[in-house]
Structures are given as C-alpha cells and as structure tokens.
C-alpha cells in the first residue's frame, strides 16, 4: 500500500509538471485575450491612436505653408496607482505625428531637460583641436519648439452594482502654442474597466 501511494504521488507530480503552460509570444495586432483592471499595452495604444486622430482632424498641426511644426514634450503626470512610464503613451503619439510629416519633435528641450544630451555634448567639441571644426555644430543652429505637449493620466476607482469595481482612467493632453501660451488642441480619452472586486488595479 505504501508503495502504491508513492507511485501515485510520483505520477501526480509528473501530471502537474506536464500541465504547466510554456510561454507564448503575443500577436499584438490580433490580441483578443481578456483585459485586466490595470492599464496594458492595448490601452496605451488605443489612447494614443485616438489622441493622434483627434489632433490630425482638428487641423491644429496644419502649418500654413505646409512645413512642419516643432514640438517639445512637457510634463505628462501619472496620477494613477500604477507605476507607468508615460512614454508608453507619448512615444506612440510622437511616432505617428512624425509619420504624418506635420510635426517634428525636439529632443534638445523637454520638461526634464534635454531628452538627448548629445545635442549639447557635441557642442563642447568647439575649439577642440582634435575635431574638424567645420563639422562641429555651429552657434544658433538649434530650432526652438513651436508647441509643447503636456497632460495627465488620472485614475478613479469606484464600487458599482453587485459589489463590482469600476476603474476610470482618463488620458488628458493639451497642445500649447509656446509663443502665446494658448492651448490650440486638447483631448480627453476615457478608458473604463469594470470587474470583480477581487482584482486589483495596481
């Protein structure tokens, strides 16, 4: 009997190990898996897409002479309970705006200092005899931004009917004309999730 128990335990262990699933790579363009209560890549993609659509439709980034506006990225605040890198939203918007050929983003100026410090570091090569000075960036060549993009991601939790949890996420962005300080475009995209109170959104 003891031997039988041991054999059954070994068989059960093998069966459990065989049931563990191996990791699979998700097809991000056709992901129909259920969502969670937190923000995932699909939510950022949806919010970014709607923001870009709204901006293109508004005409705010249509330059009168057909050239491109220069955009600086200002503060995008994360007011949620999750650890979010707001670049998950902003980078998608930047890529789409660049592809539209209506906007180009400056990496020399942003709310957190230069995104790419090399613009300034390369200028320290001036008067360095090791470098061909005709190839070093000259004074007064950087382009100042025309617009700045700022915003906030907000989260609000509430309890609904039958003790379900509802989490409201609001993606808010504004496009400000730096010269006048006026917001020429603004948008708010809500993403609302409702689920069991047993799940968490952080």
């Amino acid at each position, binding site marked *: 009997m003891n031997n039988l128990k041991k054999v059954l335990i070994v068989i059960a262990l093998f069966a459990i190990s065989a049931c563990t699933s191996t990791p699979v790579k998700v097809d991000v363009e056709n992901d129909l898996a259920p969502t969670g209560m937190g923000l995932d890549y699909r939510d950022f*993609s949806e919010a970014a897409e709607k923001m870009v*659509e709204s901006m293109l439709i508004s005409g705010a980034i*249509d330059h009168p002479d057909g050239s491109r506006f220069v955009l600086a990225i200002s503060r995008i605040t994360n007011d949620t309970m999750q650890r979010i890198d707001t670049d998950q939203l902003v980078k998608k918007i930047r890529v789409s705006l660049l*592809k*539209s050929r209506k906007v180009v983003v400056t990496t020399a100026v942003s709310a957190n200092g230069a995104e790419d410090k090399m613009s300034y570091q390369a200028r320290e090569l001036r008067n360095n005899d090791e470098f061909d000075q005709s190839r070093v960036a000259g004074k007064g060549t950087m382009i100042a931004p025309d617009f700045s993009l700022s915003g906030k991601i907000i989260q609000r939790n509430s309890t609904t009917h039958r003790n379900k949890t509802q989490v409201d996420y609001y993606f808010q962005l504004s496009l400000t004309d730096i010269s006048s300080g006026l917001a020429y475009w603004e948008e708010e995209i809500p993403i609302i999730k409702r689920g069991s109170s047993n799940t968490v959104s952080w």
Partner: protein
Amino acid sequence: MRTLTTYFGLMVLLLALMSCSSSKQNYNIQPSVINTTKAVRVSTIVEQRSAGELLRLQTIMLSQFKTKVRYKVEWFNDSGVMLNTILSNWKVKAMLPKKPYSISFIAPNEDAVTYKIFIEKI
C-alpha cells in the same frame, strides 16, 4: 499539313498573348470594404480630401441583431504599399439591433490614397 500549320499558328498566338499579359503586374488597390459578418450592413463610404489635407472616410454600420464587431482600416500609397500606422489598429464596437453607428477614419499622411476597411464579428 494545313491542320498542323493552323495548330502551330494558334500555339504561337497563345504564347504571345500570355507573355504580353504577364509583362507588368498591376498593384493597383481599389478602395474596398471587407465585411465578413452577415448581420452587419455597411453604407456607402464618404470620402473627403481637400488640397493639402489628409484623406478622411466615414460610413455607417447597422446590425439586425445585438452583436460585437471589430473594425479597422488599412491605408495604401499609390504603389499599393501598405502604410504602417497605429491608426490601423482594430477598434471594437458593441452594436445594438437596428441602431446605426457612424465610424470614421483619417489617413496617417498624404501618401495614403486608397484603403481597405475590415469588419468582423468577435
């Protein structure tokens, strides 16, 4: 002999026609709606494009039954090459019976000259 000559002539003609037809492939993509759901009807696509502006599309979906669909648009340039953009992501819509839903799209840039709209049940 005459029959043999006739057959030979026909064969030469056939070969000549085949070579002419395969000399250049046509990558021209026509605007289209690929709707795989039988319950959902799509109205005529309204296009808008002013000079120097982006192509905009609008249409109306109507379902006889309560259903859930997803839809997207793929944009193509004048060479038939698809433009990669997040504006081509799938969008989901829960539809009530006999309630019209307006859907609209905007092109990612001025290169987009034609499109395909996909609608499917999920």
